[in-house]
């Protein structure tokens, strides 16, 4: 395992450390996944660059119509944040579903995205919320949509030996917008989901203006239900419409058979139900039904 453990004071110091070690230093936020991956040999590094003491990364703030969630913000911090609850109900719900109290006290929203597990709860919510991420490396700052981060199952396009995600940005909620997160699980704590789905919806004059529907684990990373999203445009959200939206969502899903998380057939059978329920809750949230 690693021989050095450092706490940079700011982001540029972190980037500097990465450069100095030329690929032999790695960013760690909460580390709840990384510590295990270092033990089982998925990763190895000489130096851990712990970013949890960088003050600016520990904040949830408002900036130019966005909610900015720093890379050291934990799941529990997000769940309890009024800003997140008000503007990103799906993220608050998803963050509350991760692991356990002890895990959520350490694990971070951004880490959940960078570890690139297909069914990472908060990442699924962030997909639905059309989040952007700020990536900083020696080359400077870039901002990109969260979709760009997934390179494969458990593989991120972010190389944590070269760069770090400093924050995720979520647009503040507009009138008529709402979101929700729904999870199917085999135990109510300490477990990955069999399926999870997050929805962001925008309703105007009782019609759906736009819906973003994201599902997992049904492919590489969180998957958009594009057919369903197109179908919902300008529809009145009746029971039949939402049912059909659920059915269409399954067309974009390609779950695997898992001896631990359920068969492909079962997951295809219940996915429409989850999507419908998430849509119902998101519409409720848009209408002012709180978190």
């Amino acid at each position, binding site marked *: 395992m690693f021989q050095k453990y450092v706490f940079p004071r700011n982001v540029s110091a972190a980037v500097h450390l990465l450069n100095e070690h030329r690929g032999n230093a790695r960013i760690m936020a909460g580390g709840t996944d990384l510590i295990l991956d270092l033990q089982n040999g998925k990763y190895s590094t000489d130096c851990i660059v712990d970013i949890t003491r960088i003050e600016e990364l520990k904040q949830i703030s408002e900036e130019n119509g966005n909610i900015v969630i720093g890379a050291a913000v934990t799941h529990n911090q997000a769940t309890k944040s009024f800003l997140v609850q008000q503007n990103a109900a799906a993220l608050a719900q998803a963050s509350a579903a991760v692991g356990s109290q002890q895990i959520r006290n350490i694990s971070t929203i951004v880490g959940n995205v960078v570890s690139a597990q297909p069914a990472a709860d908060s990442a699924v919510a962030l997909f639905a919320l059309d989040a952007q991420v700020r990536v900083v490396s020696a080359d400077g700052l870039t901002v990109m949509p969260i979709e760009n981060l997934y390179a494969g199952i458990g593989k991120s396009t972010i190389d944590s030996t070269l760069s770090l995600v400093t924050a995720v940005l979520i647009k503040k909620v507009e009138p008529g917008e709402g979101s929700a997160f729904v999870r*199917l699980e085999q135990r*109510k704590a300490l477990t990955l989901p069999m399926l999870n789905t997050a929805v962001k919806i925008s309703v105007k004059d009782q019609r759906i203006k736009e819906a973003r529907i994201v599902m997992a684990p049904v492919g590489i990373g969180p998957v958009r239900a594009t057919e369903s999203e197109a179908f919902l445009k300008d529809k009145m959200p009746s029971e039949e419409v939402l049912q059909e939206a659920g059915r269409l969502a399954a067309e974009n899903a390609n779950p695997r058979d898992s*001896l631990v998380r359920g068969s492909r057939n079962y997951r295809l059978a*219940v996915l429409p139900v989850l999507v419908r329920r998430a849509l119902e809750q998101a519409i409720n949230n848009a209408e002012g039904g709180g978190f």
Partner: protein
Amino acid sequence: MIPENIIGKSISRVESAEKATGTAVFTADMKLPNMLFGKVLRSPYPHAKIVSIDTSKAEALPGVKAVVTYKNSPSVIFNTAARTAQQKINQVDDEVIFGKVVRYVGDEIAAVAATSEEIAAEALTLIEVNYEILPAVFDPLEAMKPDAPQLHDCKNGNNIATLIKLPMGDVEQGFAESETVIEQSFKVPVQKHCQLENHAAIAEVSHNGRITVWSPTQTPHTAKNLLAKIFGLPASKVRVLNPPYIGGGFGARIGFCGKTEPIAVLLAQKTGRPVLLSYDRKEDFIASDTRHSGYITVKLGAKKDGQLKALYINAVLNTGAYASYGPDVIAVLGTTNCSVYRVPNVLFEGSLVYTNTTTAAAMRGFGNPQGNYALECSMDILAEKLGLDPVELRLKNIIKPFDKWMLPYPCATSALEDCIQLGAKSIGWERRNEPKVPVNHKVRGIGMACGTHVSNAGPWAIQYDNAYLAVQQDGSVLVTVGITDMGQGSATALTQVAAEALGVPVEKVHVLAGDTDTSPHSLGSNASRTLYSAGLSIINAADKVKQQILDFCAGEFGVDSSELSIKNGIVSCKDPNKGQLKFEEVCDLANHKDLQFVAVGRNKLSNAPPWIAHFAEVEVDLETGEVEVLRFVAAHDSGKIINPTIVEGQIEGAVLQGVGYALSEQIVYNDKGQQAQDSFHEYYMPSIKDTPEIETIIVETEEPSGPFGAKGVGECAQVPVAGAIANAVANAIGDRINELPMNKERVLAAIMQKEK
């Protein structure tokens, strides 16, 4: 002032302050001078022959002190059950510490002792093994076929470790006399104990070769005898003890804890240093005993009015790579489930089958929960076919005291009828037939199941227990017994028993358990027997000591001993003018006359049936198949209750293990023969958020054979849980699943099947 009567009082556990403050010592908390750390190399294949094994690189690694394989370890063949079975059970010896053939993923190949756990782990990666991979089989029905890969040479048929047949009456005749006959097959999964403390052992070998092993074994004497056999030593040269605390057992630690004890001893012998061998959670999951999975078929015949005429149960159990307690487990499955109802014609047939999976052995209920699930679902199927209420059908047929049954001991007490009626009232049984109207796509259902269990290990196992009781010079009392307290509370309950039996305050009694050097023989803690069996031997010892005290005092008072009594720590005479002596005064007096009151207590060989009726209310999500247990009522007759809080705790914990068994827990095998569930993350034992409201109802009886009227309790509450929940799910959705666990997938499949 001490309480008049300490039986039936919920005193706090004697050890709970140590556990609450973190000072309680468990095996892996111990540090001995010069201690080394062990690690085990395990088979990655479900079935293979070891062609060659080269340990030279591992041995050369700095810090490595010994490497052991089949080449330098005893080849004594044993069974972890250690000949505790009675002769009528055909115990099968089929294991060695390290063999040349590995039979499941996780089977032991080699072990290393090193100065740190990290070095030991690194050394394992340097051991070079060449395997000849053999064909493997994972399902017992497949394994029984003549052309299936053979694990062991079996005389009963391919891979059949044991065949058992238990008849009573004429079952063919019984079915012929029946007006309604039903038959149904069920499939049950592998369940894992998941005691929170992983298996571990520390072994130390003295210069004269005497072995001391600290481990969380539930059966120190069994482990001691087995180690003596394997290492060719007199049993008196082996000491096995708990450190003293055990982080749960549930049957996983009967005999050995995995193979930690013999491997630790072997490494300690080779190195001359103490060795700690501590399994990690994955090893605990894949390489220590599980509950038996398998197939169970029940055929029931009854008259139109519901009177049972015939019962046939057939069980094919998967015992995995080695037989272990399998022969005993399958026998208990049969006898317990043939003894719930008054049926004149009964036949049980069982086949215990080897497969290339983790060895199955004892787990809470010992075969009974598997059989009970099948039996109790079948009772509901029969009730439906007869048009009878399931409660009514059961009340009509349950065993009553002194009914004829197949067991060699009598049913002297039963409050099952009361348990059923009180449970039905509490759950609101009358709501069961209300129309099922879904609310938010959810429907509710109510179901029940009942059953019996044991209070001791006989007639299948050797079941006697002895106790030493020594009254100290200050009047306090030391009791030593060979059972263990793995968390079930026996040390506390036995303290109450000893205090009551001698008439002294509980504060003056200490019960020392779990050490073979200090205690006479005991089968240990299993079979719901600890309080029952050790309690009887303690009472016997107390009676003897009491007589010694009375005889001594008779001399002091100058009266006949029949004139004297001991109560509340005072020896007094019928004639109040003759005075009285405090217990401690008597002991001091005796001490000054060179006398100590000591005795060996022995129990009578007996057993008795506890009775259980469970009721569940569930809610089923018709769209996802999710089942939530809303409320669970557990009504129990465990005889006289010594400590109600401890008994409730046993019931609540076992109910939740049953909920997991019913709904979510299983270990299945992938196409490489690996366990798909090898961590808590993937094995869905319930969390606090999955826990239903549990109500416990105790109906006391006075069991004449038990200590102060007590019967067994520890395993009982796991027995009918799955059946009660299965019957509730069937009531909710109008269809049956017939396979455990009833996870979302299976429940939804049944719902969709029903809709077609």
